[in-house]
């Protein structure tokens, strides 16, 4: 009857009264053994945002826009690793955590869907708006673990946003990785994000397979129609490292199918979303058991998640 054994993700219990050593960006459990990928937030006070400017806003879909953010002095606010997070704020509306979708020499890019007060306000602003930005937070994707391997990226809807940071990294370091397979789906053609990448940039990448699907047929769409989880079964992808991100229901079915297809839980990587306030493992609300998603995640392997309480 008692399904979950709650793991002690820190090895052994320490004795009462013995002080713990600080270990920023600890990664819990699992056997992939990857190391922290980056230093912590920029600046002496990790909760104080820097002043940034949103210099460019790209409309991706009817409800998603990409915001390009640079520091007030024109330099990049910080340099996140693929999969790390940034806290973006419009002071009058609040702040929220988003994955950094991609970056260039001077800007961070965040693709953001309008779902709440802050994100709706973001969708109303114009280019040139200043903002607060702090980060980077979280562990990011396990680059060392992925290096040299074939990678399968599976994303649904806005879930391509965090995955894109890793795809971009792999493309920029093409020789370090094996074959790249991208399976991406959205409700409709209009809901596909990053169309320039999907239809112009990524098709040119060497040694890759790119599969795009939409949920329901449209007259002007001659590509694949169907849901992502069944598409990956159809494609009969052979087991390697899979990076999965999307709406909860898609993740659930995709993970089940990957397991059926023989993917090893330690090779299936996903990112978690929880409500976050601080981003530095203090405010307490992003916990799954004794893990803090803002610090120990947001990237976990299926194997790690299996060992955590199913409370997310």
């Amino acid at each position: 009857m008692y399904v979950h054994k709650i793991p002690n993700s820190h090895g052994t219990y320490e004795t009462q009264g013995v002080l713990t050593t600080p270990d920023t960006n600890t990664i819990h459990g699992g056997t992939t053994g990857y190391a922290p990928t980056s230093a912590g937030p920029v600046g002496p006070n990790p909760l104080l945002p820097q002043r940034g400017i949103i210099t460019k806003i790209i409309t991706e879909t009817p409800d998603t826009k990409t915001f390009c953010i640079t520091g007030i002095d024109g330099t990049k606010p910080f340099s996140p690793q693929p999969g790390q997070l940034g806290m973006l704020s419009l002071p009058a509306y609040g702040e929220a955590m988003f994955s950094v979708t991609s970056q260039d020499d001077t800007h961070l890019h965040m693709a953001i869907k309008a779902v709440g007060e802050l994100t709706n306000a973001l969708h109303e602003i114009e280019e040139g708006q200043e903002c607060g930005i702090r980060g980077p937070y979280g562990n990011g994707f396990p680059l060392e673990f992925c290096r040299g391997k074939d990678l399968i990226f599976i994303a649904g809807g806005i879930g391509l946003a965090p995955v894109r940071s890793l795809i971009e990294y792999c493309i920029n370091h093409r020789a370090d990785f094996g074959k790249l397979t991208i399976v991406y789906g959205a409700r409709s053609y209009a809901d596909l994000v990053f169309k320039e990448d999907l239809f112009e940039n990524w098709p040119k990448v060497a040694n890759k397979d790119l599969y795009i699907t939409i949920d329901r047929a449209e007259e002007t769409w001659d590509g694949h129609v169907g849901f992502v989880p069944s598409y990956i079964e159809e494609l009969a992808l052979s087991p390697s490292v899979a990076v999965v991100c999307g709406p909860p229901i898609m993740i659930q079915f995709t993970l089940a199918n990957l397991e059926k297809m023989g993917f090893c839980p330690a090779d299936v990587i996903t990112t978690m979303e929880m409500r976050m306030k601080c981003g530095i493992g203090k405010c307490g609300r992003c916990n799954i058991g004794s893990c803090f998603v803002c610090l120990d995640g947001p990237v976990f392997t299926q194997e790690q998640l299996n060992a955590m309480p199913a409370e997310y």
Partner: protein
Amino acid sequence: MRKIAKTRIDDVLRALAPRYDLYVPVEGATTMRTPTATLWQEGLENASRFRLYEEGLPLYWRTNTGLSPKDLFFPQTEKMYTAISQGKTVEIKEESTNAWPIILFGVRSCDIASIDCMDRVFLQKGYEDTYYKNRRQRTLIFALGCSTHEDTCFCTSMGIDPKASPTADVQISDLGDAFGFTAQSPSGQQILASIDSLMSDAYTAQPVSPDPMLINVNLEGVTEKLETMFDHPLWDELSPRCIGCGTCTFLCPTCYCFDINHKSPTHAHIVKQRSWDSCMFVDYTCMAGGHNPRPSKTERVRNRFLDKLLYNRQRHGRVFCVGCGRCVSKCPVSLEIATVIQKIQAAEVTP
């Protein structure tokens, strides 16, 4: 050990007050002999708590204070920064910090243990919290050994000695008609030296010992057992009566969760602040899209007790209950940790 008659304790406080922000335990207003207007205005008047020393305050020496001193390091609401928006510009101004030294005078062993819990969260694990550190690092702690206890105290069950706090700068002992002072750190030594003329020797004096506690629980093996109890029916059994008021988390000296929010004198001018939050509130984990990982009371009650007894031990190396008894005396439905520990001990688990 040096000592001073209890009736002359004000001499010590008067000597320290000009040099430090001196916080002392003060009676709750309902039992106050001379409630002044300012005291009534401050909020939470009914509870005994730590206040900035002024002459004439009714000091409370009997047992632990109703409110813990955690708000001195981690205020219930604390300003973080100000942001001023004008047109498209946003200006961010940090709050200025204060460097004046603080003395926390007369803290009980349980609350000192809770400060260790807070230090682990805010200073030792991962990032240092700037706001907490600013207050914590300029604070000297005078522990006060207990000579009596509330019916709800159970620190001894949690491995805490009510008479001694070796990590405090100064240990004060109850010698019956006098308080004894022992320095336990170099800064403690310095301060005691500066007020030494007020005191006399107390070679043979023995601190008064409190009677045995009324609540005794067995913590042994609880953490390990809880590892297998995530899906145990106990949580369903316990949770229905919780009214989600958050009293337990607000009073608990080791509860550290906070919300970051803002108040806006005008839309263009906001003060970002953080304030205590509670995992017992429904919207605590609710996400912008509406999904909530802990939607019902069962998950929230389970999370609170697992957090105290299991998760924090895994994450920060100790159980985050110090047996102060505040949730025991104040939870309106008696869903308190001492009983829960006993229920966990009694629970049947399949191996």
